[in-house]
């Protein structure tokens, strides 16, 4: 049974989220403070953590940072709308993903599933030669991308951008992460590059604006999803 630790200081939200998770056969534990969260993660390590950033005692970002010092447990943070900086900070401090409040349960469950999948992926580090996200196939060895069997011509940077996102399907990657991985460690704040490349990629992938494969997370970063598998909101 997958064990989920939910940390939020709102009893009502804890009730809602834990009911939804229990109904899907997760083993759920809930706590209301950052300190209790750190203790709980240390004592009975969960498989995934859902962490609210606005806690009464410790800042959620601080909790992320401290937990990351000794644990690889996937962390999905819950954050209020309009605080992109805090989301980026949380991701930089080791959070795996985030959900913006108010959220639908389906959205939270999807993020939890993605976080759990990646943890397994990390556990078996052998690099796949071909990455698949929905109908996109990225052949790393041959440097070839196909969308629904149609071959797509990409520049080396576009390929690297897409390959990076395809390695972490469904997961948000921050501007900084993408810039440093694709352009190099001296980059980090040139998010306007990414807008240009993302727009070119979307054109080449023939993305449907309503159900895009390459999803923009405004102010935070990008994620590559399988529109067919994304649960409706």
């Amino acid at each position: 049974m997958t064990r989920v630790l939910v940390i939020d200081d709102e009893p009502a939200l804890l009730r809602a989220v834990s009911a939804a998770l229990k109904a899907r056969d997760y083993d759920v534990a809930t706590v209301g403070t950052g300190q209790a969260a750190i203790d709980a993660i240390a004592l009975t390590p969960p498989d995934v953590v859902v962490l609210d950033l606005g806690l009464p005692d410790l800042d959620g970002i601080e909790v992320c940072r401290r937990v990351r010092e000794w644990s690889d447990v996937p962390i999905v943070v819950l954050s209020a709308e309009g605080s992109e900086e805090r989301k980026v900070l949380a991701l930089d401090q080791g959070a795996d993903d985030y959900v913006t409040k108010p959220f639908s349960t389906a959205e939270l469950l999807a993020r939890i599933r993605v976080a759990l999948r990646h943890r397994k992926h990390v556990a078996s580090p052998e690099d796949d030669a071909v990455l698949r996200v929905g109908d996109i196939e990225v052949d790393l060895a041959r440097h070839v991308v196909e969308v629904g069997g149609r071959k797509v011509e990409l520049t080396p940077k576009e390929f690297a951008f897409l390959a990076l996102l395809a390695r972490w399907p469904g997961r948000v990657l921050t501007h900084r992460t993408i810039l440093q991985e694709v352009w190099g460690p001296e980059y980090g704040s040139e998010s306007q590059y990414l807008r240009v490349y993302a727009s070119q990629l979307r054109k080449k992938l023939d993305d449907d604006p309503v159900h895009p494969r390459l999803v923009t997370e405004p102010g935070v970063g990008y994620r590559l999803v399988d529109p067919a598998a994304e649960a409706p909101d």
Partner: protein
Amino acid sequence: MKRLPPTGGAPLLGIALGTATVVVASAALLPVRTHVTRATPALVLVLGVVVAGVVGGSVGAALVALVAAAAYNLVFIPPFWTFKVNVADDWVALAVFLVVALAMGLLVAGQAERRRAAEAREAELRALYDHLRAMAEEREQLAEEATRAQVLERVDEQRAALLRSVSHDLRTPLASIRAVASDLRDGTAYDEETRTELLETVCDEAERLDRIVANLLSLSRIEAGALTPDRQAVALDELVTDRVRRLGGLFRQARVQVDIPPDLPLVDGDYTQLDQVVTNLLENAARHAPPASLVRVSAEERNGMVELRVSDEGIGVPDWERRRIFEAFRKGEGSRSSGVGLAICKAIVEAHGGTIDVDRTPGGGATFVVCLPMREVRTP
């Protein structure tokens, strides 16, 4: 600043006036010069020297003294109209006249000069004072402008804080409602008990939204200065009992005990507004009450007022925060609330002519004490 020139009056004017006085005086005494003693013309002629000294300063006085001596000799010392002096007495008279006229003129001139110098100093001081006052006024004006700018900045800050806390406050219950509603819509299979609990959560959170909206409306009324209580006789025991029942969802963890005697005097107040005070205090207590603790609501008559106490067994309010928790947007440490609830309580209670304060609960926790005016008992 312009510095005044050293004194000395107007020498030319002094000489002219002094000489004119000497001439006029000589002409006036001319017809009677044989009938008066030598002293009379001497005394009159000194007048001219005095005039010259006052107006023209020492130089003018000295010159006019010589002129006066010459006139004295020409007109009043025989033989007339010559500078000749035959009698030794007349020589003495002329010499004494000159000395006295000179001394007199210089003395008067010195006095006048000192007076002019004093006036000049006074004028200088006045100019300096005016300058300083102008500077002070300017500084005052600048300070006033700075204060105004600060006030505006503070208002802006408060508005930003209000927007932040309002959006946070509204979103928090919305997050729970949306999570549950989307889950139920997606047809998740829940057992009956969980399903009921989730629906209760939605109802509780919807009520919480309603309370937040009520507080926001009150806040806008307070800001518009339109918080006039519509006074009526309010039975506090009924109000509190009803409110506690309605807020049942808030007290899943803590237990509420209402301890209000049924013979408590009626309160002279606005039912809706007082209900909001009680609601906010209960919500505040519920928020800070640890699990399985007691929230106690009591009331009694004290000093001609009705005293309502709402106490919890939470962390309490530190002394340094006691006054500040009634300011808008001031949350207690680690508090989840926006901090408008207590500010609204204070505004409402004070609009009723009452007081609100926070005290320590014996054994730990916060006790809010509200004093409200009693309804006058009318005997039929």
